Every structure is written in structure tokens, then in C-alpha cells.
């Protein structure tokens, strides 16, 4: 077994993350000198469905819209320094993303990188219709399907790297698999070495949200102070041959990594900590420990693993209608009373369109429930700077649009002094989850043919 540690840096935690994070990460990986991989995680649950809609409009679209911004600053350094790149930024169109990367390399005057495209996650086609209907059961009734994707594991990524890929472009893979794939390829672990795979999985879990482990999404002045939030360093995991890891970040960057930032991210979006399900392993952090080794260096150890699930999770995104939102501000004497009156007017005007949520931003908003039980319990509080925000969902666009018109009409028909109307209408997507036998999903990879991506 290869005992040399593997460094994996993560330069994006979602589609919409900072695009200037990769530079310091790549510099630190190259300076460290050993084998290294750069990952970008850009695919939240709904992102793929939005990408699928984009691809409907433009067959070459459907991959991460900020692909150029993410890669352009670091592609030359990665190719020259031997830092391989693994990402799910292929979204609904991994071949399209691969072609774009090949074209970008050419624009930058670089040699053609070996780009692998992971396939098999997309189950929306006719070939898988029966499989999906069976898996969804009664959830399938009346669904207007936008996308259906299985969460692939790390094996196709590992195989692509072993075959010599310098860049691996995937669509839907489980987020931690972006790190597990390189670890499998580098260390040559058996594919059922559950403890080690679980260790790499939790390393990937700590990385997958980018700066959320290195001080991002953590600061609370006076209680949880974080230096340099504007220049956060994105995380690097140093994974050892036994699957343990040290989380650190590039020198000279902002943020902090300590036992508390690591624990918060370790439990982020985990349900049962004794059985964290991924396509690669069932990870168990019940006995895991974190230990500060030095400034911005924390070790995670004691992760155990159990045999991977026989089924793969599938998310089916479907259209559920339209979300309409509108806002208007009131300030000064009796501002809250005027905002409450405006909400009453809207309730009367929009009666029959379903639940109308009304928030008094500045008094109460996000803690509250859609039905208004929280707000009712608070009573009036004489707020002097209040923004009324209303929202409703409707299956029909034309009905949902009525909310925007009624909020706008408050300019002349509502309470005194209302200003700053903003309205928004957006498509709503629902997600139905199911699982399918792993052998029914044909996960694999292919290399982008040389010369592809020519303008």
C-alpha cells in the first residue's frame, strides 16, 4: 500500500461559492510537494434540476455556470504542478463541462489535459423509466419530472484517476466521494476496506462545504470570533494511509480551524452519527475524536466503517408550481401597525389562493412557521422599521403573479408611507427521494476524445 499522505484541497462548497478560493489552496498543495488533488463541490440538491432546465434551453449548457471563473485562475498551475482536479461541476451535462475545460485550456495556451467524464447518474431517460416508477411507488403519481439522478460513489472517480485522468468531471456523485475517489486511487485500498473508506468519507464530509470547516458560517461576535472572514482560507485535508486526516488551510489566509469549527462541520447535515449513509460506506463517528495539533491544524481520528448500502439514493426533481414573494417597508411612528394593516389587506385581496405567509421583518420572520402560530404568539411590539414580506405558492403562474400585483398596488391603495416594493416570482421544484439497487445503475467513465471542445 502507498503510505505517502494525500492532500486534498476544496475550493468550493456550493454553486455560488466564492470563485477566488482556489488560488491559495493550489499554491499550498504545490508548496507541500506531495500528491495532491483539488476538488470543487458545486451541486446542492436543487442545483442539478436547475441545470437540467438550463440544458433544455441550450443543449451545451447545464453544467456549473461559474466553471470558467472557478478554473481559469488555477488550471495552468494545477496542470504544471501535478494537482489533479475532481468535481461534480458537470451537473446535468458533464460532457459539456469537459469540452468547455478543454477549450479553456486551449485559450490559456496550455497543453490538452486528460479529462475523464463520469457517467451513469442520470436516470431521467426512457431506459430507466420502469426502474424509477418502481422505486418511486406512489410518489410517482402525477409527477412532472425535471431530473432524476442517482448518487454515485467514488469508484468511477477512482478508476478514472487510476487510468490517468488529470481532471475528472462528474454530475451527481455523493459529495464525500469527491475525496474518497482520489484516496482509493492513491492508497490502493481494497474497495471493502470499510474503516479506511469511512475515514476518507468523513474527511470529504469536512471538505465538501468549503470554508464551513475553516471559520466560514461560524462567526458570532463576542462568542465565536473569526479573523479574516473576507479572505477565508479554504480547507485542505491531509489524509493518511489508514484513513485518518488532518484538516488545515493555506498559510496567510483568513479564518480559523480549531476543534470547535471541525465538530460543527463534522455533524453538519448528519442524522444518525453512528450510521452516516453514503454510496461508498456506512460511516460511524460515534467514537471519533478531534484533536488540535497546532494553529489551524486539527486531526480527526477514530472513524469506523460498515459495509456500504446495497441501494443507491435517487433524487427526482419535479415541478410543483410557482413561488411568489413581495415586500414593502414601513418606518417611523406606528410602522408595525401599518405593516400589519397591509398584510390584512393582502389577505383579503388574495383570499382563496392558498396559504399566504406574512413576515414582519424587523419584528419576526424566519423563526416563524408558515401558519403564523409563532407571530400570533408574539403580539404587537411597536416596531419602527418594519418590512412586510408576503409569500405564497400556486400551481399556476398566472395566479401566483397576482401576489406581485397586489403588493405593488399597496403604493396607492395600502397604508400610509409604504415604500420600496420588490417582488419576485420563481419556479418551484420538489424533490422525491427513492432508492434503486446499485447493480441497476451503470456507473463508469470515459475520456474526452482528444480535440474535443474545439471552438
Amino acid at each position: 500500500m502507498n503510505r505517502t499522505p494525500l492532500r486534498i484541497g476544496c475550493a468550493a462548497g456550493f454553486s455560488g461559492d466564492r470563485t477566488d478560493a482556489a488560488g491559495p489552496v493550489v499554491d499550498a498543495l504545490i508548496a507541500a510537494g506531495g500528491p495532491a488533488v483539488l476538488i470543487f463541490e458545486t451541486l446542492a440538491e436543487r442545483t442539478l434540476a436547475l441545470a437540467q432546465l438550463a440544458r433544455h434551453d441550450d443543449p451545451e449548457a447545464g453544467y456549473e455556470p461559474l466553471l470558467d471563473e472557478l478554473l481559469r485562475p488555477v488550471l495552468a498551475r494545477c496542470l504544471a504542478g501535478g494537482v489533479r482536479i475532481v468535481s461534480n461541476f458537470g451537473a446535468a451535462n458533464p460532457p459539456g463541462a469537459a469540452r468547455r475545460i478543454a477549450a479553456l485550456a486551449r485559450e490559456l495556451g496550455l497543453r490538452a489535459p486528460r479529462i475523464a467524464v463520469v457517467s451513469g447518474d442520470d436516470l431521467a431517460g426512457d431506459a430507466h423509466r420502469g426502474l424509477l416508477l418502481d422505486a418511486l411507488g406512489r410518489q410517482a403519481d402525477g409527477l412532472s419530472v425535471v431530473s432524476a439522478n442517482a448518487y454515485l460513489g467514488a469508484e468511477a472517480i477512482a478508476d478514472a484517476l487510476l487510468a490517468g485522468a488529470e481532471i475528472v468531471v462528474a454530475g451527481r456523485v455523493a459529495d464525500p466521494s469527491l475525496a474518497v475517489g482520489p484516496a482509493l486511487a492513491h492508497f490502493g485500498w481494497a474497495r471493502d476496506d470499510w474503516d479506511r473508506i469511512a475515514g476518507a468519507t468523513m474527511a470529504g464530509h469536512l471538505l465538501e462545504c468549503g470554508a464551513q470547516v475553516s471559520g466560514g458560517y461560524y462567526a458570532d461576535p463576542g462568542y465565536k470570533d473569526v479573523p479574516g472572514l473576507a479572505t477565508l482560507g479554504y480547507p485542505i485535508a491531509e489524509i493518511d494511509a489508514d484513513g485518518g486526516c488532518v484538516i488545515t488551510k493555506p498559510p496567510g489566509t483568513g479564518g480559523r480551524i480549531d476543534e470547535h469549527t471541525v465538530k460543527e462541520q463534522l455533524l453538519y447535515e448528519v442524522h444518525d452519527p453512528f450510521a452516516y449513509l453514503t454510496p461508498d460506506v456506512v460511516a460511524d463517528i460515534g467514537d471519533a475524536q478531534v484533536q488540535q495539533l497546532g494553529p489551524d491544524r486539527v486531526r480527526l481520528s477514530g472513524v469506523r466503517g460498515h459495509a456500504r448500502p446495497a441501494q443507491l439514493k435517487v433524487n427526482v426533481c419535479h415541478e410543483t408550481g410557482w413561488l411568489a414573494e413581495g415586500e414593502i417597508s414601513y418606518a417611523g411612528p406606528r410602522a408595525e401597525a401599518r405593516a400589519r394593516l397591509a398584510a390584512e389587506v393582502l389577505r383579503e385581496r388574495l383570499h382563496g389562493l392558498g396559504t399566504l405567509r406574512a413576515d414582519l421583518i424587523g419584528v419576526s420572520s424566519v423563526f416563524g412557521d408558515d401558519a403564523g402560530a409563532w407571530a400570533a404568539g408574539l403580539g404587537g411590539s411597536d416596531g419602527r422599521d418594519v418590512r412586510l414580506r408576503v409569500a405564497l405558492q400556486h400551481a399556476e403562474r398566472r395566479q401566483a403573479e397576482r401576489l406581485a400585483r397586489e403588493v405593488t398596488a399597496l403604493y396607492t391603495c395600502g397604508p400610509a408611507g409604504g415604500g420600496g416594493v420588490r417582488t419576485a416570482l420563481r419556479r418551484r421544484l420538489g424533490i422525491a427521494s427513492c432508492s434503486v439497487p446499485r447493480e441497476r445503475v451503470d456507473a463508469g467513465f470515459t475520456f474526452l476524445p482528444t480535440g474535443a471542445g474545439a471552438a
Partner: protein
Amino acid sequence: MSIDQDLVVPLYRAAHARTGDKGDRANISLIAWHPQLWALLVEQIDEDAVRGRFAHRRPGRIVRHLLPKLHAMNFVIDEVLDGGVNGSLNLDGHGKALSFLLLELPLRVPRALVPLLAGPPLEPDESNNQTGDKR
């Protein structure tokens, strides 16, 4: 007030938290600021306390997972997000702010452990403020 009487402080003095979501399910981690504060969390911040704090959202099943080696616990709260980010009308459909709703629960702390609490020095009147709310 006798010298050995417990203080009541807002939970955020003793622990920090982060919310995650999947569909209509939220998980909220709760992590002690110091190993010696962990037992207070185990004793006082249980499923019932969380159910009370989130009652207006009519949660379904609530499970608390204990992680003694991390001095942490993880609450998994079902049907607490009005359908979640794809179904809720909430501005914060993910429920990301909910960790701070949890962190205002009151916590009784023995005076001997008060030096371990996070944040600025306790104001004399803050020790008996049940909610930590300064309004």
C-alpha cells in the same frame, strides 16, 4: 441569593450549534464549549426541551444522538421545516437560523462552572434571565 446557587444562563453561553437540512428534516448539532459543561447539556437539553422550543412548528419525531467523545449531541427533528426548502414559504426555508432558536433555551449552571462559559463576563442581572433575551 446563596453563594452555591445555580445560575440560569442562555444555552449559547455553554454550547454552540449549527443547523443542517434534508427535505423537511432539520438536524441541529449542539457542542459544549468545555468538556465539563457537557453533562449539563445531557441532563437538561433533551428531546422534550427541544420539542417545547419548536412547538410552534409542530415537529414530528425528535431524536437526540449523544457523542460523548466530541462533547456534542445531534438533534434530528422531523417535519419541522414546513416542507423544507422546496415547500416552505419561509425566507429561510432551510431552517438555517434555527440553531439560534435552540441556543436561547435556559440552562442551569453551577457557580463553579461559570468561569467555563463563553462570551463576555456575565452581567449581575443576566444570571436570572430565563431566556437570555436582553429586550
